């Protein structure tokens, strides 16, 4: 156990040692991520199943998504994972200013992702692709023999909004967490000895990135050639 006052005051009384505390919170977040895998897993399963049953309708529907915006957003999110890594790296070395900077950069990139996503949603709204009474669907693909069934294409948008919406909700929660971390970092709460929340929140953020890494090809790319 460290004699440094910062470390000892951060040791909750029910843990026997500082290592036990760090190991516990790390294990805790990993187990939480397991539940997240299964949570998104149900949606991914439904999506891939329906896609395999309605390949034409889903391909036609995905032609209405912007590959450009999707790619930019993928890059933005990968960038934010990188800034998180740098934040953890700074925290491990007790570099307070650098930690605050990288936490801030993560928040900015997260907001940028949400901004682009909101833009895409607005575009879908104008096109009438938001499932509801005003839903209209036209097969815009060239060189297909028969236009896709609009009702089955609509299922694509049910899942598109469901999955990206839940993903965006996770982003919003993540940004809230990182804002809290940044305020605490500015106040100098994290030391070289004790900075457990940074890697823990980082793991959560990376998971949200991982979900997008699979959403991007599944929603935007497959069937576009």
């Amino acid at each position: 156990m460290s004699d440094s006052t910062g470390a000892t005051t951060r040791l909750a009384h029910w843990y026997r040692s500082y290592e036990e505390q760090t190991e516990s919170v790390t294990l805790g977040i990993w187990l939480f991520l397991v539940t997240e895998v299964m949570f998104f897993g149900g949606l991914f399963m439904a999506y891939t199943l329906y896609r395999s049953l309605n390949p034409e309708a889903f391909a036609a529907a995905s032609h209405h998504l912007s590959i450009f915006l999707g790619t930019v957003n993928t890059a933005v999110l990968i960038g934010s994972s990188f800034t998180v890594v740098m934040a953890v790296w700074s925290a491990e070395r007790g570099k307070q200013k650098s930690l605050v900077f990288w936490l801030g950069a993560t928040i900015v990139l997260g907001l940028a992702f949400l901004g682009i996503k909101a833009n895409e949603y607005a575009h879908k709204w104008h096109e009438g692709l938001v499932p509801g009474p005003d839903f209209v669907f036209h097969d815009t693909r060239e060189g297909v023999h028969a236009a896709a069934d609009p009702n089955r294409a609509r299922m694509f948008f049910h899942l598109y909004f469901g999955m990206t919406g839940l993903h965006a909700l996770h982003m919003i929660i993540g940004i809230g967490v990182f804002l809290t971390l940044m305020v605490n970092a500015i106040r100098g709460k994290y030391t070289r000895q004790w900075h457990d929340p940074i890697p823990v929140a980082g793991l959560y953020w990376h998971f949200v990135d991982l979900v997008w890494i699979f959403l991007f090809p599944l929603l935007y790319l497959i069937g576009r050639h």
Partner: protein
Amino acid sequence: MSTKQPIGLPTYFAVFAALLVLTGLTVWVAFQDFGVYNNVIALGIAVIKSTLVVLFFMHVIHSTPLTKLILVTAVFFFLILVAFVYADVWTRDMLNLPGRPPLIGG
């Protein structure tokens, strides 16, 4: 745990660059036609990208065996869910029961 065997900055930069390159690659591939391999390639690249994130950004490469086991368990049970549901859906119409609407549509 990550403090015990830190991954150096050059690794982080290299992984970051690789992720961006793979993103570009997967977009480029999407516009080529490899027939039945289109989906395999798109998902394959996604698996490679996620492996990079998990191993290096999430430090699993230096983590305890327990963390690795947890990760494998989660993926394994997700695959169980997928496999059994597919096993049902894809064999459901094989008996050609009368009065059942076709599952596969346009």
